């Protein structure tokens, strides 16, 4: 049974196909409004999330399907001690496809190993969040017309930021990508991502703590939030949370067609004043997230039929 646990589960050709479907959905929504009639998506969210869960639910509803599930572990059998494996087997009896978020890394893989229906990883702790990466890729594709020959800056928490690791991994398969890593020393990109992804794929990269000095080079600026929930130590969080705040004056020397992205939610790392700048793409990213999830649900249900 085909699932999506890691962005690398799909080839670049399959990603292109998903993006093409998502673009077609955007152009012709009526064509897809009943594609999933009679199908059910189970959203198993063992950890709170507004955006991702509602995005999945909106995606399924716009495909004409229906949705069931829970939005926190306390309202599920996990509170009684049920294993992820048993939950996956049980839900397979009720639904056609699962979207799972879980605080433990690898939980969606365990679900996929035990379910008889496709499982989509909707975020597993600080590990993977492939559908955010799909949303990011669709946004880059729509704003830049493709993925080749781009200088992409990642700014903020590059250590725990799973969306950053996944997007770097996905972009590493394209030609002419340059990466600029902007973070405080304590939140640098882990060395295994640098070695295993960037260096292994011969992707030029540089590291800096100074956003303003590199902003003129960037085609894409991917901002991230310093996530409180990833820290064991509150003091470290408080010290690092305001490392970067993107304000209009910092964009003075940026390219006219810079694409500013953020996986959201933001706290204060992008000033609200930036929202009116035409280069701000983060709310488009949210919308694109719904369309690419529609394309993904369609693809996995189609493959499950075979």
């Amino acid at each position, binding site marked *: 049974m085909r699932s999506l646990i890691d962005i690398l589960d799909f080839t670049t050709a399959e990603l292109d196909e998903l993006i093409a479907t998502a673009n077609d959905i955007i152009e012709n929504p009526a064509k897809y409004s009943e594609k999933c009639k009679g199908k059910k998506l189970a959203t198993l969210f063992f950890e709170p999330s507004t955006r991702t869960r509602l995005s999945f639910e909106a995606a399924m509803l716009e495909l004409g399907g229906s949705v069931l599930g829970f939005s926190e572990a306390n309202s599920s059998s996990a509170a009684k001690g049920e*294993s*992820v*494996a048993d939950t996956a087997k049980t839900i397979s009896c009720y639904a056609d496809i699962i979207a799972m978020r*879980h*605080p*433990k*890394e*690898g*939980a969606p*893989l*365990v679900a996929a190993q035990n379910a008889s229906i496709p499982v989509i990883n909707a975020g*597993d*702790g*600080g*590990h993977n969040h492939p559908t955010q990466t799909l949303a990011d890729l669709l946004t880059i594709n729509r704003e830049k017309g493709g993925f080749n020959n781009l200088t992409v800056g990642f700014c903020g928490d590059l250590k725990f930021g799973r969306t950053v690791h996944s997007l770097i991994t996905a972009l590493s398969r394209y030609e002419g990508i340059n990466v600029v890593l902007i973070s405080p020393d304590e939140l640098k990109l882990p060395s*295994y991502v640098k070695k*295993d992804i960037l260096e292994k794929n011969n992707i030029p990269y540089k590291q800096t703590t100074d956003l303003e000095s590199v902003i003129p080079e960037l085609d894409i600026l991917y901002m991230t939030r310093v996530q409180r929930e990833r820290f064991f130590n509150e003091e470290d969080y408080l010290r690092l949370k305001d490392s970067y705040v993107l304000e209009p004056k910092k964009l003075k020397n940026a390219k006219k067609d810079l694409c500013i992205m953020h996986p959201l939610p933001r706290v204060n790392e992008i000033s609200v004043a930036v929202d009116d700048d035409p280069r701000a793409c983060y709310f488009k990213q949210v919308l694109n997230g719904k369309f690419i999830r529609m394309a993904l649900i369609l693809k996995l249900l189609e493959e499950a039929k075979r």
Partner: protein
Amino acid sequence: MNIDSITNGFVIDHITAGRGMRIYELLGLDNLDCSVAIIKNVASKKLGKKDIIKIDADIEIDFDVIGYVDPGITINIIRDCKRVEKLTVSPPEMLTNVIKCKNPRCITTTEQEINHIFKLTNKEKGEYRCLYCETKAN
């Protein structure tokens, strides 16, 4: 130092000096009631020093464990006091229930029934990562 030769069993040779005990533990040799000898720091032309383990019983050996800990090892199979076969090992692609993931955020730390599986991610360095959370094995 003399160690009796064995009748039927195995001689695990060319163990990197210092790794003999690790292999002893991971293979669960402490559970055997036959003769088992660990010889440490034996002079070796090839390695300088090496460890050797002799097991005087025809048991099932987990070659994956040996390939993971020390891929340079040779395993001599002994029958009727004679060596009948000499095997070399290579690092296994997957390692199941040999080591445990130490990442406290990994699903394997809370769900007891899950197999602890590690994947060979870098053959040259012998690097393994947890299948579930991709944390590097120590």
